């Protein structure tokens, strides 16, 4: 009787499943975090300061050759960075995944090292290495050859692209290696039987199979390079190269022209749309590829002495991308005076003790960094899991729209995002300016794509069958997620959390406009120090940040497994 009653009531009121309410809330949160700041930015770009509708901001933003050239520079620079990254990453990924190359663990450590080195620290390291006059590499070159011209010059377009590639090739490595790990040797064997050598088999069979992954990684590197602020500011300005991000910064100068900056940023969002479309096309092609998670034998290809040549290449990339920059920064951090070079009397730990015991904000900036990053990583992972669930199980019709929202922040330059957040949340009714909340929300939105990519590929590994079984046995949608899906994904979610945490600890561009009196982070402090003509203390703080990151990575490896950062979940 009661059953009938409740049945009748349900029909009468059409009560939604509780989960549906969660999806509605999720949509609202995503709209608030991603769409609202962007919409606000769009509105700002279409209005004068006094609120009159206008296209004038776009004319101002693109009305000068110099401004257009900056955007063009960014696109060329990002393409070059992506191309160099492919050249670095793909042979390394292939050698690590498919061959009997020795020292794979060492290569793995080097790639991980370049991944966790904050870009602006790497850039400063490279200034010390490849400055045309005093860079170590050039000093050595002159000493050996007696030449007067420098061997390498970091202050050039190519120099900038190389430094950016050193920082971003690990992304392509991750994509390419995880795809290569899934290609079974049988395909190569088939090619071999039909008369192809190792080289031909790799070129004609293996690489085409993983091509979508490589291209996917390259697109991410491209988009990241377009959005990067720190390295172009540190190296690009002395090299006299304007990029879209340094140009944006100029629009924020006194008198601040937020509306022009907003207009200037809009084409960057169009590029995002384009890239998402390209990726979509590629994913469709991927359907033809014979990649399966299971079955198929995977044997390393046997190389003779050639395997040492492969190792040599990997070590060279690792040396340039992480070992040398870290060494020079380390030297600077222990130097009394950088200009006196290596000498026993010039050694000191004072830069560290100064930061830890006498600097008034270094410790609080470290604490802020830790808890902002922790909070934003937790928020991002929860959001990402829910969105990935909705998308992969196609629960609602506009699921792909949710995916787009979750991915969109990836290509919004940090400063644009910060201004969008500022415009959206600083003023009442939110009144979040100067609070920890605005930074945490901005970090969460900014790194949502990482968490989402992680969660979504993890979701792909869980077949709906298991959930369907649980649901058939009477579990609700949310209960299923909590008891079936989340436990199955625990490890990859934790991996995602750590990645977001680590990138948040070094985030500069979104933080710099949102920090208030009590919310300064280490990255902002590092940026302040980078203009203060005191590299010794800057390097020491950089090293503290690196040490913290290493500890976290150590935790991650212990908890989630060795490959947690270098694997596509």
């Amino acid at each position, binding site marked *: 009787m009661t059953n009938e009653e409740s049945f009748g009531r349900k029909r009468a009121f059409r009560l939604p499943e509780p989960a549906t309410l969660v999806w509605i809330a999720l949509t609202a949160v995503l709209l608030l975090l991603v769409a609202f700041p962007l919409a606000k930015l769009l509105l700002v770009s279409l209005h004068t300061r006094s609120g009159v509708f206008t296209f004038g901001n776009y004319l101002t933003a693109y009305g000068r050759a*110099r401004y257009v050239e900056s955007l063009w520079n960014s696109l060329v620079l990002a393409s070059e960075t992506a191309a160099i990254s492919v050249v670095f990453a793909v042979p390394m990924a292939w050698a690590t995944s498919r061959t009997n190359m020795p020292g794979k663990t060492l290569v793995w450590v080097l790639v991980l090292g370049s991944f966790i080195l904050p870009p602006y620290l790497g850039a400063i390291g490279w200034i010390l290495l490849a400055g045309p006059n005093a860079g170590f590499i050039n000093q050595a070159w002159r000493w050996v050859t007696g030449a007067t011209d420098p061997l390498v010059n970091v202050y050039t377009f190519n120099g900038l692209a190389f430094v950016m590639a050193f920082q971003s090739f690990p992304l392509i490595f991750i994509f390419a290696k995880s795809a290569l790990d899934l290609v079974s040797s049988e395909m190569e064997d088939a090619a071999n039987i039909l008369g192809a050598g190792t080289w031909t088999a790799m070129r004609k069979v293996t690489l085409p199979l993983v091509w979508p992954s490589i291209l996917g990684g390259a697109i991410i590197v491209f988009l990241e390079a377009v959005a990067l602020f720190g390295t172009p500011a540190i190296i690009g300005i002395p090299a006299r190269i304007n990029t879209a991000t340094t140009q944006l910064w*100029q629009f924020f100068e006194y008198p*601040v022209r937020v509306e022009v900056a907003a207009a200037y940023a809009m084409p960057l969002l169009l590029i995002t749309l384009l890239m998402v479309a390209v990726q979509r096309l590629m994913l469709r092609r991927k359907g033809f590829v014979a990649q399966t998670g299971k079955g198929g034998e995977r044997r390393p290809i046997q190389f003779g002495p050639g395997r040492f040549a492969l190792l040599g290449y990997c070590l060279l990339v690792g040396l340039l991308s992480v070992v040398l920059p870290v060494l020079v920064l380390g030297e600077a951090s222990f130097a009394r005076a950088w*200009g*006196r070079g290596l000498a026993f009397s010039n050694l000191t730990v004072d830069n560290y003790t100064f930061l830890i015991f006498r600097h*008034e904000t270094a410790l609080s900036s470290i604490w802020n960094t830790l808890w902002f990053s922790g909070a934003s990583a937790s928020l991002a992972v929860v959001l990402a899991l829910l969105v990935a669930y909705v998308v992969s199980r196609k629960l609602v019709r506009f699921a792909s729209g949710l995916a787009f929202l979750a991915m969109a922040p990836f290509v919004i330059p940090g400063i644009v995002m910060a201004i969008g957040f500022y415009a959206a949340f600083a003023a009442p009714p939110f009144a979040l300016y100067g609070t920890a909340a605005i930074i945490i929300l901005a970090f969460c939105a900014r790194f949502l794509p990482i968490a989402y990519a992680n969660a979504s590929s993890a979701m792909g590994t869980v077949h709906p069958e298991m959930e369907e079984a649980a649901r058939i046995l009477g579990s609700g949608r949310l209960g299923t997620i909590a008891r079936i899906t989340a436990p199955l994904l625990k490890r990859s979610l934790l991996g995602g959390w750590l990645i977001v945490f680590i990138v948040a600890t070094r985030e500069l561009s979104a933080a710099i406009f949102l920090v208030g009196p009590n919310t300064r982070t280490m990255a902002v402090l590092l940026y302040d120090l980078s*203009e*203060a003509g*005191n590299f010794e203390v800057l390097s020491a703080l950089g090293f503290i940040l690196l040490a913290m990151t290493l500890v976290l990575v150590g935790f991650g490896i212990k908890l989630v497994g060795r490959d947690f950062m270098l694997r596509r979940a």
Partner: protein
Amino acid sequence: MNRVISPRLTKRSFLAGSAALGLGAGAARAEDMPAHERELYEAAKKEGELTWYSGQLQAEPGEAVGHAFSQAYPGIKVNVVRSTSQVAYQRLSQDMQAGVAQCDFFSSTDYGHYLFLKREGKLLPYRPHTMDDLIPEVRNADPDNMFQVLNIGLYLIATNTRKVQAADAPKSWKDLTDPKWLGQEAVGHPGYSGAVGVMAVTLQKLYGWDFFTKLEKNKPQVGRSADDPVTLLNAGERTVGMGVSLATTLLSMSRGNPLSIVYPTDGTLAVYCPSAIPKNAPHPNAAKLFMEFTAGQAYAKVVRNFFIMPLRTDVPPPDGALPFDKIKLISATPKEIEDGIPEVKEKWRDTFGV
């Protein structure tokens, strides 16, 4: 009253002796304070803190000043928000647009900020009682006392002593256009540094923009802040730094870096740096007390340790620096600076390409 004075401070003020009469470093005993100061202190203690948006001092001296203030006036905390002047101003204008009152004391290197804020009626007038103990140049910055000049940044030329002999070093700004310095100079950027902007305006006034066109032929390395060249000189990447700040250069020299300073014969650039209290300051009494402190001897002694020129005639210049009366100063008027900076930024980008 004694309860609020920490033992360490009591000892220090004991050592300093009664001659300091509470004006020196260490905690001033409330009963030793002049009436106006005591009144302010009592009111400020109720507010408990102040927030200082500072683009003038680097992080380190900024924090040392905040610390010294809290020592002198126990119970009042200083939140130092350090950034470049442009960012500090940006934050303040964002605050104002958002209707948020956070900043109690605003210090930047850009006079234009203050003229604008004054015109908009956003400032609270105040004049410290000890203003007349400072050098004459700063005593009457604003007739309405909407802001005060409590800091002067000196900008000059520095060389790397390993690469440039003292006899060969440039003697003046004009010398920097000599082709013999091709590929050896470094300079900041007016788009990133207010001080470099003032330098560009002042040198344009002196020699016309042609000076910069000639300078560009020497291919100087353009950085961001006025202090960027110091790093490049230390590393030996460049040998002559243009428009570097005296304070940063002296600090770097004291650490043992191979640098030397040149007071240009055609004038050392003086950048008058105002400070002001926003009208909507959430802790106005603490802010006024802080302004008194900034005009006082204790402040001068703290900043001196960071190689910043004290404006008080009764505190000697930092080690290695000349006193104000031995330096030929050049500068531009506030009006010239306000009008000139946007203009030179554009010209700079046309001439130097960034």
